[in-house]
């Protein structure tokens, strides 16, 4: 089965929304990278981090109501609203026919640590109930359901690199089985100093992400959140995707400088297929394939492959009406791919 991508809402170090994404892909906008000084057992490390500056959320949500919403939740809420705004079809009036499926590798980790700060600094009976509530993994999905009055099912999935596969497969089942008519799926993570500390201890030297270098770890942490509004393929006029399908005239690799999955990416590169990677625009994230899917969606809509920071073919290049793009993620012992194209091609 294929499903329709009706809207995308990207929130990344390139900015918030499709215009920022497009500018970043065309090279007129650079990702925001901030350096953090981190003390490790072997000395101080300067850690670059791709970071999000949340902008424009007050177009969708009253500023006053954001007071108790943590930063990661704000990213998700903004991404969901941007995806709906980008949609070619409105949400159904009966919002019990809309479902939410969110995924992250680490959840609201920074909020968890802020809860612990209260306990450590002021005592066991001084933890903040608000921070505890927001530290639960499904708080993002909860917030979006409340804000958009969505009454259908809501899942939060956390399986590191395998998360995207589970999300898209679940959305497909929900749509195919008539559980929902629309699914908002969202993937992302928030940087926090503890993750930075781990990265600083695991990686030796940070210069730039080299997606096709499978020998050295060239990981540079990133953060962000992307939402997709999905519907049935019969509703698609711009983009459809089919999961478990690695066919495609172009392949976007979720290679991001990690060693995880690098063998799979190397095999694809050696196969002679036309491969590109965009992680140097977004940072290294276990769920970074979400940004590749956003780029692929935009590419299908615009009819060209955007300039890629890493590729084994010349970019930009036109994407034919019948051509499609596979987004591929590999991990130790497995992989996942989805193919995106125009509706006539994939239906």
């Amino acid at each position, binding site marked *: 089965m294929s499903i329709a991508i009706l809207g995308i809402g990207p929130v990344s170090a390139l900015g918030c929304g499709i215009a920022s994404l497009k500018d970043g892909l065309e090279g007129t906008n650079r990702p925001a990278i901030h350096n953090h000084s981190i003390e490790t057992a072997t000395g101080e490390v300067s850690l670059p981090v791709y970071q999000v500056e949340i902008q424009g959320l007050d177009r969708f949500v009253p500023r006053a109501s954001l007071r108790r919403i943590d930063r990661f939740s704000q990213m998700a809420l903004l991404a969901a609203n941007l995806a709906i705004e980008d949609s070619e079809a409105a949400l159904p009036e009966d919002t019990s026919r809309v479902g939410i499926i969110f995924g992250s590798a680490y959840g609201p980790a920074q909020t968890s640590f802020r809860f612990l700060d209260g306990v450590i600094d002021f005592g066991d009976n001084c933890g903040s109930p608000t921070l505890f509530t927001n530290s*639960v993994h499904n708080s993002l999905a909860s917030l979006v359901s409340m804000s958009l009055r969505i009454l259908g099912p809501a899942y939060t999935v956390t399986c590191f690199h395998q998360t995207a596969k589970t999300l898209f497969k*679940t959305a497909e089942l929900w749509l195919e089985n008539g559980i929902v008519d629309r699914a908002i799926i969202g993937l992302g993570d928030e940087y926090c100093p503890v993750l930075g500390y781990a990265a600083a*201890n695991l990686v030796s030297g940070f210069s730039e992400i080299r997606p096709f270098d499978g020998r050295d770890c060239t990981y540079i942490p990133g953060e962000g959140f992307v939402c997709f509004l999905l519907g049935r393929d019969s509703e698609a006029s711009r983009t459809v995707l089919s999961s478990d399908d690695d066919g495609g005239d172009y392949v976007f690799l979720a290679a991001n400088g990690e060693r995880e999955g690098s063998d799979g990416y190397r095999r694809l590169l050696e196969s002679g297929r036309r491969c590109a990677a965009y992680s140097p625009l977004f940072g290294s994230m276990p769920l970074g394939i979400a940004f590749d899917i956003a780029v692929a969606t935009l590419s299908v809509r615009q009819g060209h492959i955007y300039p890629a920071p890493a590729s084994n073919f010349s970019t930009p290049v036109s994407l034919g009406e019948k051509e499609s793009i596979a987004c591929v993620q590999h991990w130790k012992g497995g992989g996942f791919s989805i193919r995106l194209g125009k509706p006539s091609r994939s239906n």
Partner: protein
Amino acid sequence: VKTGNATKKKPAGVAGLGCICAAGARVDDIMSAMYAGTRKAAAPQRIQADIADPPPVFEVPSNCDKIEGPSSRTLRLCLAAVEEALDNAKLTASDLRKVRLGIALGTTVGCTLNNEPFYRDCKAGKNPEIVPVSNYLNSNPAIYLAGLFKARGPVATLANACSSGTDAIGLAKSWIENGLCDMAIAGGCDELSRIAYLGFFALQIISPAPCKPFDRTRSGLNLGEGAGVMVLESLDSAGYRNKRPLAYVTGYGSACDAYHPITPHPEGIGLSKAIAVALADAALPAGQIAFINAHGTSTVENDRVEGRVIARMFPPLIHVVSTKAYTGHTLGAAGGLEAVFTVRGLLDRRLPATVGFQEEDPECVVVPTRENVPVAGDAGLSTSLAFGGTNSALIFETEEQ
């Protein structure tokens, strides 16, 4: 209500059950403890909190805690329950490698990167080793089991707060029905965590005494820990093994309140919808449900809302039990444990008393079991209400007896 019924082709059978919790380390022991009305709520032993009169918890007894294996206690509890479920299903690990196996597990603590000693050292500038981070990366419940059993089917760790275990079973049911796998290990697992203990304390919904679900004087929940899992199997697979399923998971529904982060909608709109979807999925009228294993946390709001929804949707004398009176609230594990108890209630043809319940609360409308009661019927419902306003319901059926 539109459901997956129209396309349902491969019903999901329940092949085996496994549990570990404060009431015991095996399903038979736990059921015996519940039928005997014994429970073991006590001040926490494994976690320490600088709180006057620490509220009681339901911890897995130390004589049940001999499980070896991964560093994550949540995962060790899970493995104990999985081992029992496989034994109950008469399956070995090598059998699982021959089929398309799916893994769906719910958890909350088990997917949270907040190792407190590590964070304290980070915060104090002590440059701790990052072993706790590595352990966390290697302890994702579903990924760990998928690696252990070389699973070739779908994999999901669900973090839907207190409905995680219920939703994991519901998701695995859909995998079997849609032919994505032949078998699935599904349920929930969670260890008792100091951070969760302090968090619920901060929310002021922990009871200072053993909980009293649906009681007029109830004053909050007790936290617990454990794991409850089941092996689900397609009928083709069961036929191939020449095994008859213990029961069938025939209905599942999930819906949001879209109301409040921690308080259920006063009219229980999400729970009502989830139950209605589950009933439609099972193609059963409410009157065919023999009993309900309620979420029944013993908080003022949960029990009031849940009781009212049950009273509104089901016949007046339907049996309602809260097994959290014996297990405490095991968070991500709760739905898994309670699904197992629901199946056992159908198989045993009886339900335990809701220990702790004494005084009816007109606000709850329903009156839970006061004593062990016989089950007359072949369908049981298990409900979950979660932080974030997620509500889920599972229906299990046994063949007519």
